[in-house]
């Protein structure tokens, strides 16, 4: 009986701890280094995206929740075309062939970076996929999300808009440029 009661109490405690945490705000800490390559082999760092809000998504092609949120990330890119937001999806610890096999089925217009040895995954202490970091225009981590979301609506869009709102009005003016997926 005692064991049963303990179990019931534990169940309540444990299940309450599994509720979706949503976006976790961070105290504007400097982001870890990013040293990756794009699909053409060109080196990329966070400095390449300085001055813009950055959505940095860690994913893998074998991870169903990662793939489930990709279309909404692409829709976000289209919706935010011309605004100072960069979406970067960093594939964790897979080969270029594995990544390209997925991209041949799913057309995405934002940059895909490679982390074949998982060194960026470790530097950013990513333990679950997908994990997404939202960086402000100064390269500081402002929000973290573990797990998937619909990026072009609701809380996700609100958080991104709040970071964009911190930028001078001039930076938020729509620039018309590339918005077609590769």
């Amino acid at each position, binding site marked *: 009986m005692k064991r049963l009661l303990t*179990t019931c109490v*534990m169940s309540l405690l*444990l299940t309450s701890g599994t509720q979706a945490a949503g976006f976790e705000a961070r105290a504007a800490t400097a982001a870890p280094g990013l040293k990756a390559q794009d699909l053409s082999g060109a080196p990329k760092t966070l400095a390449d995206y300085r001055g813009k809000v950055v959505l940095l998504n860690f994913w893998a092609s*074998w*991870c*169903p929740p990662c793939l489930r949120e990709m279309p909404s990330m692409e829709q976000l890119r289209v919706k935010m075309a011309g605004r100072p937001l960069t979406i970067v999806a960093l594939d964790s610890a897979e080969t270029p062939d594995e990544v390209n096999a997925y991209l041949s089925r799913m057309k995405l217009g934002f940059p895909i970076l490679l982390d074949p040895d998982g060194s960026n995954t470790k530097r*950013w202490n990513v*333990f679950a*996929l997908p994990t997404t970091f939202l960086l402000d225009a100064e390269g500081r981590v402002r929000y*973290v999300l573990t797990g998937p979301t619909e990026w072009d609506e609701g809380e996700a869009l609100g958080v991104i808009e709040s970071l964009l709102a911190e930028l001078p009005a001039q930076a938020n003016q729509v620039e018309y440029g590339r918005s077609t997926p590769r």
Partner: protein
Amino acid sequence: MRFFRFLLLSGWACAFAVRADLPDYQAFPATGQQLLLWVASERGRAEPEVRAAQQLAAQGVEVWSLDLVNAYFLPQLPGSMDAVPLQELADWLRASQASGKRVIVVAVARAAAPVLRAAALLEPAERQRLCVILMYPNLYTVAEPLAAPDYLDLGTLTGLSVRVLQPRRSAATPWLPGLLDHLALHGVLVSQGMLENLREGYWARETPTEFEIAESRRMDAMLLRELNAWGCK
């Protein structure tokens, strides 16, 4: 007559009390000299695990299959593994060794934590006779983005032989070296094997790949292959 009934009831109660010291497990008897203790993950035992046990038994490897969440009425969550009575688990390990067979424990995911902690309760000589295979063990206390990982304290595991089997397609794969170091710090003689093209719990995925389906059907062969390669026969 009443006294005789009392005696019978007392005998039954004593038998139950002794049995209650060990967790409920499913046995797949075999005549060979190996006894494999399969401890399912915090998600509970899946049908392919039962099939693998039957296949192993048919090849002479006896299997005792333990589903901790079912045995102790726990929720299917990693944290539940902290509630497993370690002394009962240690007694179960001792009971398996009393069979006189070579005992190999396979613990899946967070079930690695109570299994290792129970092994720490064994006498050093008992522990040295054990072989433990950990499938993608989760031994973290804290694993949060941007924070260094923190590991569970497992107790003294000097002399315990452990082989970690890690599916390549796992967020934990880049972290494997640190986990192996942590085990070695506890005195474990540790080695690793990589399961290529597989994900964690590949035998119970909602959307398995063709390869995962095929591999879940030959889990017995994979385990025997690993045991042979490892030298823990």
